[in-house]
């Protein structure tokens, strides 16, 4: 059994600066889709008198955390920290989606009627995504422990 990594000529790790730029782009995209859009949506719904148990601050906070994990994953991808960070990010995403599924409702009230829309099942279905990502992260973590650096030619082919 060898502890040596793969031949460095078989992979090409992007520079930290390049990874930071890409991570920033990922952060912008994620902040738009999981922070700004949901925040605006919840705020507008509230303006129309539609009541939802999801607090805008919760959505913003969780979105920022998920974005942070995504940024960290990308920057740390060439390192052994990638797997554990991915596990943490996926676990957080899974817990967040489950939390949303339990609070996914919107209620409209008038003087003689109340209409409640529930859409938690959509988020329960989406839970499969972080679960698969979690499986990928565990696999990567195990691989990094057993065969350090072996995935680098696969992740960053020369």
């Amino acid at each position, binding site marked *: 059994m060898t502890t040596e990594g793969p031949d460095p000529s078989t992979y090409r790790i992007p520079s930290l600066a390049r990874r930071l730029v890409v991570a920033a782009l990922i952060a912008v995209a994620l902040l738009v889709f999981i922070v700004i859009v949901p925040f605006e949506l919840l705020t507008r719904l509230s303006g129309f008198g539609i009541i939802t148990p999801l607090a805008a601050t919760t959505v913003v906070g969780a979105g920022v955390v998920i974005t942070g994990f995504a940024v960290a994953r990308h920057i740390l991808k060439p390192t052994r920290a990638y797997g554990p960070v991915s596990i943490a990010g996926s676990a957080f995403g899974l817990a967040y989606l489950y939390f949303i599924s339990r609070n996914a409702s919107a209620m409209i009230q008038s003087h003689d009627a109340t209409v409640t829309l529930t859409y938690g099942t*959509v988020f329960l279905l989406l839970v*499969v*995504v972080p679960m*698969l990502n979690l499986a990928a992260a565990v696999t990567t973590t195990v691989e990094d422990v057993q065969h350090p650096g072996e995935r680098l030619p696969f*992740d960053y082919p020369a």
Partner: protein
Amino acid sequence: MSRVARAFRVTAIVALVVIFVYVGVAVYSASKLRGSGNSMGSGNHGNNNGNNNGNNNNNNGNGNGGTTTVGPNDSLIYSTSVNLTNPGFLPINSIQVTAVVTMPGGPVLARGGSPAMSIAPGATQAIPISFTLPPLSASGPAALLVTHDAVLPMAFWINVTYASVFGVAVNMTSNFSWGAPFAGLNATVGTPTPEGNGTVALPLTVSFQNHAKFSDVGTITASIRSSSGQVCATPSLSLNVPNGQSFNQSQTLYISPSCNPSGGSVLLSFQGPQLQIALPAEPIP
């Protein structure tokens, strides 16, 4: 192992796309849903198990556009239906209506609703809604409904599951207009007049309006009693009063001079082919 990890990630992306597409289609389909008001109309007009020539149902009475039939044990079953069209691509998995009618500020009068039904994509389904009113009687919480119209508070809940992922719960309050079958019932006993043959002539007038959604067909029996409870006479009046019509009929009774109805009462009861109602007693001045 890198390939395994990548396979997991690719599967996750595919799952994400599939779920987004499905939810998008479901939202689009839901936007196409159309409902229409109650539509039963005269669907079972006048047909109570084929042997009812009296308690016909009519929709041109007052109220909510449904029909009323006589159920077991003289209960009244109010029925209507709502048509719902599902022109989308995905099914309405379940739709169920629950309704509760209460007396004004008082106890629950009737419960009912619809069975849980599903509507396939592209189909139109009539959702039958019915609730059972207790037997009409001169006593109990529904006693007023025999002779008085009423606007009864009604609450109903609609639960819908659409495309297996969306749930809609609607809770509404409304009013149910009740038309009394013997509205303004009045039994008047006139002044007794001695007759030459040793009897006393006693005029009796019974009047009311039928505001119910069914016809009053049958017999009203009056029991005229003295203040001590002695039965002076028990005349019967045949009647056939369609909904919305008035009834006013007088009859002269000949009673024994020993039975003085002054201060007594008139006990009325209605008996039809399917419906028996004990009517409120009327005092005799």
